[in-house]
């Protein structure tokens, strides 16, 4: 059991998402950066859909009431266990009554904490991923005591550090494919999308990343149609909106581009002020 001493900026429980209910308007949800979250579970020998804690910029402070093993991945935090710095990207033994905190990330925006066996929280419509209105909680609350699933696997005995691809966190360009309304843009607007760089605004969250565009793009709205994580839309005020994991299932803005899964994971590590460019892939 783990007690939440302080909650951090935006901490949630997530697994790989709530599949099968999008036709009823239920967002997919799930970890923003699937690359880092899967790595955390993998290093612990957990199954890949085990629920992890997603940490945003400032992490929570957690008190472990029982000994366990953890892995922290994602953004470059300087985590400490009982005030002594611990490594990321490798299994760490956590004795009972330990206190874990995260510090601030030197790079990236989101971190993942996996525990041996995975977090055991309310499972709603086949997923533990927090989404207010579907799950009771939308955010991890101070004072909450988190349960852990009993772990069937044997302890991982390794001190090996996994080398994590740094480009995942610092790569400016995200890979995109053309969206259904790409051809509704003028040729010069299409060129701008390939050449310009866009700035991540502070209005970016688990639903969408809002990017500032140095040149206003205008494209007609559409009859409400399906959208998914990674769909790039143009808002009426000319901003670029990249839908993320908690996005609605349908939307009415033109869908000009679609990010690859790898690129959604990379964008999830960007913070306000970071620059992003689009790298076009062919179908």
């Amino acid at each position, binding site marked *: 059991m783990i007690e939440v001493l302080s909650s951090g900026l935006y901490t949630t429980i997530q697994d790989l998402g709530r*599949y*099968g*209910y*999008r*036709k*009823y*308007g*239920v*967002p997919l949800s799930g970890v923003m950066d699937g690359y880092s979250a899967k790595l955390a579970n993998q290093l612990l020998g957990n199954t890949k859909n085990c629920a992890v804690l997603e940490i945003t910029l400032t992490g929570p402070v957690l008190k472990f009431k029982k000994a366990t093993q953890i892995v922290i991945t994602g953004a470059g935090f300087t985590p400490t266990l009982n005030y002594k710095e611990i490594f990321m990207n490798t299994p760490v033994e956590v004795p009972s009554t330990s206190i874990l905190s995260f510090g601030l990330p030197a790079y990236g925006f989101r971190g993942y904490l996996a525990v041996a066996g995975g977090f055991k929280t309310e499972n*709603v*419509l086949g997923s533990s991923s927090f989404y207010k*209105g*579907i799950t009771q909680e939308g955010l991890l609350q101070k004072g909450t005591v988190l349960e852990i699933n009993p772990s069937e696997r044997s302890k991982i005995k390794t001190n090996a550090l996994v080398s994590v691809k740094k480009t995942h966190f610092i790569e400016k360009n995200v890979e995109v*494919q053309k*969206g*259904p309304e790409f051809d509704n843009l003028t040729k010069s607007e299409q060129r701008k999308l390939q050449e310009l760089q866009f700035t991540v605004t502070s209005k970016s969250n688990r639903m969408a990343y809002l990017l500032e565009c140095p040149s206003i793009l205008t494209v007609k709205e559409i*009859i*409400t*149609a*399906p959208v*998914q994580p*990674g*769909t790039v839309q143009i808002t009426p005020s000319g901003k670029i909106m990249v839908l993320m994991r908690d996005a*609605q*299932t*349908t939307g009415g803005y033109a869908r000009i581009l*679609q*990010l*690859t*899964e790898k690129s959604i994971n990379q964008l999830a590590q960007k913070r306000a002020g970071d620059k992003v460019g689009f790298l076009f892939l062919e*179908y």
Partner: protein
Amino acid sequence: MKILPKIEKFGENAILLMWKGTINAACNDEIIKIDKWMNTMFHKEILETVPSFLEIAIYLKPKVAIDVFVKQLQSSLQNVIKTEGIKKKIIYEIPVCYDEEFGIDLRELSALSGFSIKKIVQWHTKPVYRVYFLGFLPGFPYLGGLPKALCFPRKKEPREVITKGSVGIGGSQTGIYTLDSPGGWNILGRTPYYFFDVTKAIPSLFQAGDYVKFVSITKTQFENITSQIKEGTYSLKREIYND
């Protein structure tokens, strides 16, 4: 309306079936028919689908080869568009209290349009609306069939919270806020009923192709129904047609 949809890729692992034209019930019938058929025919390849006014999104399972799937779909679509869809129709009667306590925009709309509140309510309760599909919020029905007189622009500044159960109009659409949510629609009233229940295997009451009629109730009835729902003694009125 037996036209083959255009098939387009929608990222690495998804496909869109796209029909041309404007929002219409015949196309929605076709979309519902093809959506059902695909989910049976290709259940090994399809993770899930999302129908909408003029499109269906097909989200594929991770290891499905998208180009192979598109070819298979293309050849079998030819045959299925010739078949007839299911004709069973369900009409739900949704109780709505149009009291100004809940219908927080009634007075403003009335002043703006010159129509009396009574007239607005009469118009809103007259049609049988079609559920085209669900989206925006869990269980939120996109309803078609709003009378032209009630087509007002959305509010300039969206509200931060619209209470669950609120019934509103926006542009040419009307709908029910199935959860507390921000929103820019004009609110006419509130229903005591709920439309999304995560404890059910199919959590949404409405399915694409269903019909909805709003029935005006008093505040006393609203309170009675609310307590009946709590006790589990209330059942929504519905009619089923097979034509």
